[in-house]
């Protein structure tokens, strides 16, 4: 096992996971992999336990999808070790829900899930039950018999996940499962992932949806430039990174006046590139907000204080690492 990145921290999840005697769903150890001779992952290690949802977060190009492709065996590694489950028929026990709608458009969700079930080797007599269960898990039942091409994006997402679940995978890889879906569907998909890992699978979740990740993941890993910067339970990582600090932000509708700019700068706020948003992480955010309220009001803007989220964590860690 190679040493973790110096800035990496590891904090255990608060949610119970399966006993340690169960083989991990996925082990990536000292992986080096990339495209056309250009390395994307460097000395990358990750262990995903059975019974947990592990979310990979990071900016575009950080290497999240590359991790997924390495885990699937679709991208050969130059160095390192990949192990899925106990290693028996490993690839057949990986359920993949790609970012796009990976479905036959002329077929219904039920037929799509059936095709995957057949390919996974689900016995004929068990197939109907397995298909129904996978469709039920994602709440896809009401649209299960309509052609996929007639379904909205949200229903396609459900069907996409159902097809990945039907083989009862040991490792589920879900790539942006909530892209373009409403809050209700997001809740259903989160519950489906939780139900899947409860049955003993491990789930590698790749998502930019901070709310979904907060609700669903047991652990997160923050990735930048092919390296894990930190991993652990979401709340614990947030606490470690930000403590009791709150994010103070000022949003303006027009360019700042010189006087206001002086106020914001003195208060320690930094602007975005367009100068219409100023922010600062601080323990006394409420007091600073009260101090700036009149100035912001005069500028026609608004001031807000909130707890930092996972997006802020990714930006914070990625910024620190670069």
């Amino acid at each position, binding site marked *: 096992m190679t040493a973790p990145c110096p800035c990496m921290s590891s904090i255990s999840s608060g949610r119970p996971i399966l006993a340690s005697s169960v083989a991990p769903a996925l082990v990536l150890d000292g992986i080096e992999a990339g*495209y056309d001779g250009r390395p994307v992952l460097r000395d990358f290690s990750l262990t995903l336990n059975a019974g947990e949802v592990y979310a990979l977060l990071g900016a575009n190009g950080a290497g999240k999808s590359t991790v997924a492709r390495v885990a699937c065996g*679709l991208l050969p590694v130059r160095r390192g070790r990949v192990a899925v489950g106990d290693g028996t028929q490993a690839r*057949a026990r990986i359920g993949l829900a790609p970012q796009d709608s990976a479905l036959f458009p002329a077929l219904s969700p039920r*037929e799509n899930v059936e095709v*995957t079930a057949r390919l*996974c080797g689900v016995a004929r007599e068990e197939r109907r039950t397995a298909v129904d269960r996978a469709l039920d898990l994602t709440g896809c039942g009401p649209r299960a018999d309509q052609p996929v091409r007639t379904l909205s994006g949200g229903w396609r997402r459900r069907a996409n996940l159902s097809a990945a679940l039907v083989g009862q995978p040991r490792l589920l890889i879900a790539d942006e499962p909530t892209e373009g879906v409403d809050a209700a569907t997001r809740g259903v998909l989160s519950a489906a992932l939780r139900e899947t890992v409860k049955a003993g699978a491990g789930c590698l979740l790749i998502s930019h949806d901070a709310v979904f990740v907060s609700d669903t993941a047991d652990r997160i890993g923050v990735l930048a430039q092919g390296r894990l910067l930190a991993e652990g339970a979401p709340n614990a990582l947030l606490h470690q990174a930000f403590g009791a600090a709150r994010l103070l932000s000022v949003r303006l509708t027009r360019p700042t006046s010189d006087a206001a700019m002086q106020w914001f700068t003195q208060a320690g706020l930094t602007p975005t590139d367009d100068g219409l948003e100023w922010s600062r992480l601080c323990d006394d955010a409420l007091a600073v907000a009260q101090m700036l309220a009149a100035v912001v009001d005069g500028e026609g803007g608004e001031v807000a204080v909130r707890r930092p989220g996972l997006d802020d964590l990714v930006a914070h860690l990625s910024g620190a690492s670069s």
Partner: protein
Amino acid sequence: MMAVAGAWARGFWRDRAGVVLTLLLPPLVYLLFAAIFGAGARGEIDTSVVMQDAARTPATVAMHDALARDMGARLRTVEDEGELERAVIDGRADAGILIRPSTGRPPQIVVLSAAGRDVAAAALQARLEPMAATLSGQVAPPTARVATVQVGPTGDVQAAYYAGAVSVMFVFFAAMHGAMGGLDERRSGLQARLALARGGLAPILAGRAAWLTVVGVMQSAAVFVAAWTKLPDLAPWQAAAAAVTALLVGFSAAGLALALTAACRSREQAQPLTTFVVLLLAALGGSMAPRFLMPEAFRALGWITPHAWAIEAYQAVIWRAEFTPGVVAGWAVLAGLGAAGLGVALVLERRRAAR
């Protein structure tokens, strides 16, 4: 493999317009090709002729009447030599006949021809030679000095030829079009999911090849049904051999189509590439015009195409009722191309997945 083939089959059947076009267009095009190109190759060249008789002797009038009886509406008469030339030059007539008076001598017959219509002029010239001899007071040469005896099967050989030729061309077109569905599956991630579920890409590609082969067999069957009345009576072994040929044509088309689409990143790349390849193979292989009409170099080059082997195999088993080593060689070429294409597709798809 069967799960993938079944999924493609269901997708195909649900696109009713696509089904109709896939199975109806080939027979329609076959009927057109057989009618248009078949007649020329059979020797039935319906030459249109324009004539000006400036001599107007009893003999030339009798000659005009004889030609008019024979050619009917395909012979037109004009009164002016300039009009005669214009009709030939602008293509209203394939050739022209000008009969000039000649003082103290028999009228002179001239055949007018435009560039690129040498065949029509030569045919007309041959037809007019005896008449010219009669006009000049000579004894017309006997018209059948050399006997012609037809050997081999009798009937509409061109109709049988084009049944094979057109079906092969459409099977390749349909395979290329169908294989492009694989590009969508690759882009969406469906291919990766199916490969993971089954434990590899090979069964997925084999399933696609199986379905494309089935479509090819259906298309060939549709063409041969349309051609049925023009084919000779087939013995059971002939029908079976033709069916095997159709199966192997479908397989070779599937293999080649999968290899070409595997080499492409997108439909935008695949569309022009596959169209070019299919048209080139069809032209060289004799699907558009019989290879015996081609220059020798192209005739030899045609053997690099599966079309030539397939058409030759169809001709042998359907028309000549022969099961020769050439048929077996054709089958081997078609099967080999299909297997090689499938292998290349597998290698390319694996490489692409690893990029």
